Each structure stands twice: as C-alpha cells, then as structure tokens.
C-alpha cells in the first residue's frame, strides 16, 4: 500500500453534503464554456458511434439477418447507444478533467471559491452525464432512419444514458485523478475501455462467446447499458431491474472513488 501518510485532517465538509449553490456554480461554468465548443463535442460524440452503426449495420447486416430475434439494424442501432454514451462520457471526463486541473489550473480557482472537491467532482460528473443522455440518443435516431421502429420505450433511453453516463464520467474522473501523465491514458483505453466496448453485446450477442467472456460481460457496466436500452425499446422485463441496479451501483462506487482520489490529488 501507499506509504504516504493520510492521517492529516482533510478539507472541510461532511461527506455527502452537497451545497446546491456550489454545484450550480460549477455547472454554470461548464454550460457557459459549452457554448464555445459544443460543435466539436457534439460532432465527436455522435459521429463515431453513427459510423459504427452504419458500417456494422451494412457490413454485417448483409451477412446476418436476425440476431436474438431482431433485425441486425435494430440490434446494432440500440447497441450503439451505449457506445455513444461511453465515448461521450469517459473520454471527456478523462482528458477534460486532466487538462482542467493540470494545465489550465481551473480547479485551483474553483476550489478557492466556496466549492469543495466533492461538489466539484459531482457537478462535473452530472454535467458530462447530462450531455451523454442527449448524445446517447443520436445513434438510435439514425437507426430509425434505417428502419428501427419507433416505440414509447425510447423515451426512457435518455434517462438510461444519463445513469450510464454518470458512471462512466465518474470512472473517467477517477482515471484522470490517478494517472500521473496524460500519455498513460492509453493504457486504460487499450486494456480497459476497448475490451469493455467490444464485449458488451453491442455488435454481436455475448451468448456466442466463451464462458469467461460471458462472465466478463456480466461485470461490464456497458453490457448492462446495452441490454437495458434494447429492452426499453423492445419491451422491458424483470431482469432489467438487475441491469439498472448494476449500473447504479457502478455509478455510485465510481463517483465516491473519483471524489476520494481527486481530493488526494487537489488538496495537498
């Protein structure tokens, strides 16, 4: 374990007590800033999953007619929602957070104001997940153009994307707090995010995978997001409580860990 003494009194605040005014302050900063970069952000967060959707939809779609009883475009059109959520939350959280506290020193200014690390991390995660809630719907809307039938359950998708996005945003903040250099992010991308992205039942069902990969998929929050989105669109059942529960627990754990590690990083 780490040899750094951790017995010092830490900064204020009782855990779990979030000032609304502090959260609002951080959110306002993000919203005002979003006005200057929203085009680039919306572009990168939505175009990439849409390309996946179109490439797989046409590519595999010509080989595969039905997957688990769904047309392939329906299968992949709902699956890439999770991809869009992942891309629009974990990467902005990792890179954005690192840039803000290391290069731009933005967090120094925010923490000098009446805002604590807990509130800062929470507001940042909420903001990124709100965006993910919107961006996540884009592949689904594109899939409608290509033959995905609209359903009432689709109205739940932004909320599912928000919950999933909160977990991935917190995870990304956690990574940025732990990493010493921005170059090290590629380790996480290659060894964690890419495998989770592939073994999530997005492009192919996990039922065809070996057992170890199926077990891996079941502890993959992205898999639960994919399942929940698909079921929301095509019909919910009791098992979706398990999917939702897993995502919520993942989000809460990642959130608390992100706060903990970020506080160690920001408060010296």
């Amino acid at each position: 374990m780490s040899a750094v003494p951790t017995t010092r009194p830490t900064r204020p605040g009782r855990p779990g007590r979030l000032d609304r005014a502090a959260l609002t302050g951080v959110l306002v900063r993000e919203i005002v800033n979003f006005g200057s970069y929203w085009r680039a952000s919306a572009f990168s967060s939505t175009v990439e999953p849409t390309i996946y959707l179109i490439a797989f939809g046409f590519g595999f779609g010509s080989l595969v007619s039905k997957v688990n009883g769904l047309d392939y475009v329906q299968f992949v059109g709902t699956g890439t929602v999770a991809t869009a959520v992942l891309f629009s939350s974990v990467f902005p959280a990792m890179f954005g957070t690192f840039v803000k506290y290391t290069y731009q020193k933005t967090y120094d200014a925010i923490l000098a104001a009446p805002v604590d690390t807990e509130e800062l991390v929470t507001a940042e995660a909420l903001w990124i997940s709100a965006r993910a809630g919107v961006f996540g719907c884009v592949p689904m809307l594109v899939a409608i153009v290509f033959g995905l039938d609209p359903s009432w359950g689709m109205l739940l998708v932004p909320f599912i994307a928000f919950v999933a996005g909160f977990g991935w945003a917190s995870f990304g903040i956690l990574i940025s707090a732990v990493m010493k250099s921005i170059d090290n992010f590629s380790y996480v991308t290659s060894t964690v995010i890419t495998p989770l992205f592939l073994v999530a039942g997005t492009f192919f069902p996990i039922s065809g995978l070996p057992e170890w990969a199926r077990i891996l998929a079941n502890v993959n929050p992205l898999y639960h997001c994919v399942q929940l989105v698909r079921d929301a669109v095509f019909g919910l059942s009791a098992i979706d409580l398990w999917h939702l529960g897993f995502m919520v627990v993942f989000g809460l754990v990642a959130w608390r860990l992100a706060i903990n590690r970020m506080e160690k990083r920001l408060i010296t």
Partner: protein
Amino acid sequence: MRPPSDDGCSGAVFVSPITWRARRVASGFVSDPSPAIRLRGVVKRYGAVTAVDGLDLTVPEGTCVGLLGPNGAGKSTTIKMLTAQAIADEGEIEVLGHTLPADSKPARAQMGVVPQLDNLDVTLTVEQNLLVFSHLYRIPRSERKAAIDRALDIANLRERRGARVDELSGGMRRRLLIARALVHQPRLVLLDEPTVGLDPQVRQELWALIDRLRTEGASILMSTHYIEEAQRLADTVVVVSKGQAVAVGRPSDLVAEHAGAEALEVYGPPARLREVEEVAQMRGWPTRRTGTSVTILRAEDLDGEAPEGERRVANLEDVFVLLTGEEIA
C-alpha cells in the same frame, strides 16, 4: 546610471505611499482583536521538504501585508493553506474568524484569490468569466449584473466586456484576473505574485488597482518577490525565508532598523571588491554583495576613511539580503 536597486526608494513617487501608510497604521493595526488572518506555528511538509516551517503571520483587518521572499520561500504554499487547498501539518490557521481547514468554506466565500498563474477561461469573453465567478461566489441573481459591472469598472474593462480572453493583452488578462477575485466584494483578498512577469507600465497600473482596493477597506495579503511592490503597497512587510518569518514591520522601520539610512556602493574589479570586504570586516561595517559591487550599509556612520563609492538611500532589498543572505529581484 543609478544602480538598479535605487529606484524603489527615492523620488517623488515614494512620498505619497508613506503618507497613507502612516495614516493606515495609525488607524490601528497594533492590537486589532480579530485579524483577517492569523497563523500560529504553521508547518507544511511535502515529503522530505519543509515548505513552511513554523510560520507566524497576522493580517490585521483593513491592512495590506506583504509576504516578501525569494522563490521557494513558502509564499505560495502559505496562500494555498489559507484556502485549505493545502492542509497544514502543524499549527493553527484562522481566516476571518473561521478555523481552518475544518471551517474553510465560509471563509472562502468572503475571500478573493488572485492566483499566480492565469487560469481564466480563455475561450470565454471577459463578461462570461465574471458571470461564472458570480455564480461560484453565490451572488444573488438580482445583484449579479451590478456586481459584474462593478468588477468591469474596477479593472477598467467595460469596453472589452465582449472580448474573448485570448484576444486580450497580458495586462488586461491580469486586470481581469483581479476583477474576477473581486466580483463578490470580498473582505479579504489574497494576491499571489500579482505582477510577476509583467512590464513596468502594466505593473504600475496594477499597483494603482490594488491600492484603490485597500483604500476601500479590504484586507490584503500579497506575496511578492519584488522589493518595490512590497515597499509601495504593504503596510506591514513580512520577510520570509525558508518557510519562516525572519522580520516583520513597516517597510521604513525595517530599513531603518536593519540597514540604517544610507548605503555606500563600491564598484570595481573583483580584486578590489574583495579588498573592500576585508577592510569592512576588520572595521565591523555591515556589507552585502550586489553582483557588480559591494554595498556598505549604515554608510551614515562611516568616518572619513570610507572608500570611494556611490551613496544611496538604504532599501528593503538591503534588509532582505542582510537577513537571509539571499538575493532577490
């Protein structure tokens, strides 16, 4: 040419600061019951490095205290501890009546911080930067517009309110950084090297701004390694070296006490300088090196045997070098 260390101490510009300093000091910093900042025996270590080593510091309400010290003296660490962004290992810190770090949030709400490094949002406009901080500092909606206008006026940026920060000059960005810290009319302002790296005109502009702030009654703690800055703006200067306060007092008192009234600068080749130092040591004259010269302090006490040289008024830099053996800007 006059020696460079002269310019902080002579000429008409220096007269008026002394007047207001005297006035402010007379108005009572001697035994203020509740100072804006009180540090007692504060220690801060980073691994094997002790950045702050038993620092005592008091900023009486309504005064400007200058933390004067070279790079690495612990000034920035001290400022970080005042916003609980660094947590002291030992000692007591009280800010605006709040004990840190436990009770730092209400203290931070009444404090404005001007950081050493520019951390404005560069893709936002001047006004948007202030708007963001009006929210972070919880200014009620009804007062927000007036607060932003007031901050724009302080920084003289009203005409540039719609300009993006990355279009501004270095001086304007600094002014905005200060305005941002003042948007909520803080009772206490922390300035960390407010004019570092700026050209002389911009520096003077900022001094005027800081001076106006103090005449309006804010308490100020300013760290600097510029002698002239401390001498012009601070009611009290705390000379910091290796994490400790080595001298505290009004700038003029410190000079009088430690360096006397006049200094004699003797120029010459290295051999000549060594010779002068030897003579001075024999006779017990206090000296300091100034790079190209040897300065004999308390030159007013020298008899006719003093070597040839240029006489000048003693200054804070003399005090600093004498007390710490360190050269600063």
